[in-house]
């Protein structure tokens, strides 16, 4: 582990501006917001705030824009869409980065690659940080993750007296440290111990606050045993299909392709989509396989906790809890998973396959 003083961190951020568009948490009155740093407008490195927990919005758009031109068709014929400039993201947390690993399974480590995602994963720089507090909705430990980054960062910062412990997570991170050797020093054993103790304490805090939601069975088992819709209808009762949970989720990655005609030809855009939308799976001719909201609600859980693990070996949830904060129907995913395990209706087995 390295050690970097707080003042050195600001210098490092300033230096990054040469190669990257920098996105970092900035204090805006009461709130911490992810902003692009524009020198002269919202300051440089000194304006970056430490975010003690994950930010309100997901960092997913840094790699996977809400809409992106994936191809164009001009007078010269079809061609690939543009690649955005490299971005440096500061303030990512363990749940944000666990989510990158989850989407990688689909968009990168697969027969087909999503070119925009792969380019962004390759060229973007991640400076992440340990959580130093947890929000009420945080439940990373329930889904096998931790309140500190475990992978997918270039540098990770752990707050210590007067600065940060710095863990290098990639060759890109190594090069960055080498290029700015004057900003880093070797960390001592006490500093490593202090970091580890803080991490252990944070992990315990997240586990303790989720004790009421603790489950014993695998999520997939709890979800699959409910063959009828009775409990699902109760869980979905306050869902107003606003799609917020999908939009703030760092692991949701559904998109649709839409062609837009312009003066110089047409562009094909990939746009975020939501599995709660009635028209999400509608086919030409009007048929839709999940007409009722309860079916779409169930499909959302089935995808995250049954299909995705079956197909990719991991759960499609990093436990960030943003879906809980964003839900205007006050639906808490942890509570739903708990009820799915504990409220087993005997009639479920009788209804069988629908």
């Amino acid at each position: 582990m390295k050690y970097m003083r707080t003042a050195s961190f600001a210098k490092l951020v300033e230096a990054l501006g040469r190669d990257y568009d920098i996105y970092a948490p900035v204090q805006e009155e009461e709130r911490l917001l992810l902003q692009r740093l524009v020198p002269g407008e919202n300051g440089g490195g000194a304006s970056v705030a430490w975010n003690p927990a994950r930010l309100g919005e997901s960092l997913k758009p840094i790699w996977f824009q809400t809409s992106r031109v994936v191809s164009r068709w001009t007078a010269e014929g079809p061609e690939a869409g543009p690649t955005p400039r490299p971005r440096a993201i500061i303030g990512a947390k363990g749940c944000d980065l666990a989510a990158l690993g989850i989407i990688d399974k689909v968009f990168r480590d697969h027969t087909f690659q999503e070119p925009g995602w792969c380019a962004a994963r390759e060229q973007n720089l991640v400076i992440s940080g340990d959580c130093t507090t947890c929000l009420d909705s945080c439940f990373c430990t329930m889904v096998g993750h931790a309140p500190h980054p475990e992978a997918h960062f270039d540098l990770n910062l752990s707050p210590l007296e007067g600065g940060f412990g710095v863990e290098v997570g990639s060759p890109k991170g190594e090069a960055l440290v080498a290029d700015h050797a004057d900003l880093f020093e070797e960390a001592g054993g006490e500093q490593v111990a202090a970091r580890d103790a803080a991490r252990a304490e944070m992990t315990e805090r997240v586990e303790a606050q989720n004790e009421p939601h603790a489950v014993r069975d695998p999520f997939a088992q709890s979800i699959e045993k409910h063959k009828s819709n009775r409990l699902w209808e109760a869980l979905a009762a306050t869902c107003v299909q606003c799609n917020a949970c999908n939009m703030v989720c760092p692991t949701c990655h559904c998109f649709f392709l839409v062609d837009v005609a312009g003066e110089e030809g047409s562009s094909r855009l990939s746009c975020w989509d939501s599995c709660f939308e009635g028209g999400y799976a509608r086919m030409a001719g009007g048929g839709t396989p999940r007409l009722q909201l309860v079916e779409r609600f169930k499909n959302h859980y089935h995808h995250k906790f049954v299909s995705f693990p079956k197909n990719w070996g991991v759960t499609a949830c990093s436990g960030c809890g943003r879906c809980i904060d964003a839900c205007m129907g006050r639906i808490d995913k942890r509570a739903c998973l708990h009820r799915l395990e504990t409220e087993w209706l005997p009639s479920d087995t009788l209804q069988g396959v629908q």
Partner: protein
Amino acid sequence: MKNPFVPVPAVLEAVIDETPTIKTFCLKPAEPIPFRAGQFVQLEVPGLGEAPFTPSSSPFEPDRMEITILKTGLVTNRLHELEAGVTLGIRGPFGKGYPIHRFEDQTVLVIGGGVGLAPLRSLLFHLFHEPEACGNVSIKYGSREPAEMCFKRQHASWGERPGVDFTPTIDRPAEGWDGHVGLVTTLLDDLDLDREKTYAVSCGPEVMLRFVTWKLLDVGFPPERIYLSMNRNMSCGMGICGRCNVGSYYLCKDGPDMCYADIKDVPYALG
């Protein structure tokens, strides 16, 4: 790797009127697009959008591609207005295609409904081109009325092939029709086929697939021997955009032809 969102331009060389609502589009792609029978492509009308179709032509002729299309939505309505000479886009092929490797020495029972005969024609071209790929071929084809039958010009030659029988049916009696009348499922009542040596392959509207499946199960076919060309909204074609799932499967990647044994426990798999 090639960017999977960028289509290959393809010139529309001819349009064949199959029925009042179905046309076959004969395309010449800028580069050959090799595909297996049952795989699908995304056909694009530049500036409007794209939609998934399984080619109806022979997989052994990748230089040209025929796609037979029912007029039923935004893209297909525009396609039906097009004339030869325009350039369209093709992405793909996607999906797995028919399990032809299982058909050796087996009878293949081909059950089509309406425009559902289109992907099956590609399969037939494969089986006719490589007769050793399977045993006998029995084709059952249902349409609403005689005017709505696809590929009428080829029916007679199919039925005359050794080891091949072709039986068409229409839903309701019609003037001038002296063939079988009744839904395509009525052709499955008295099948003289060994259930343990036959694979059933079906393509058509979802409601037809449902009743065909029930009928096949009724007459003794094991779920493992029933294959269905299923319908879902497929956008990316690569199993990454999310919408075409049937349980844990993505039709665009794991299908669109699915073994009934794999999907029978998925709620609403067949509507």
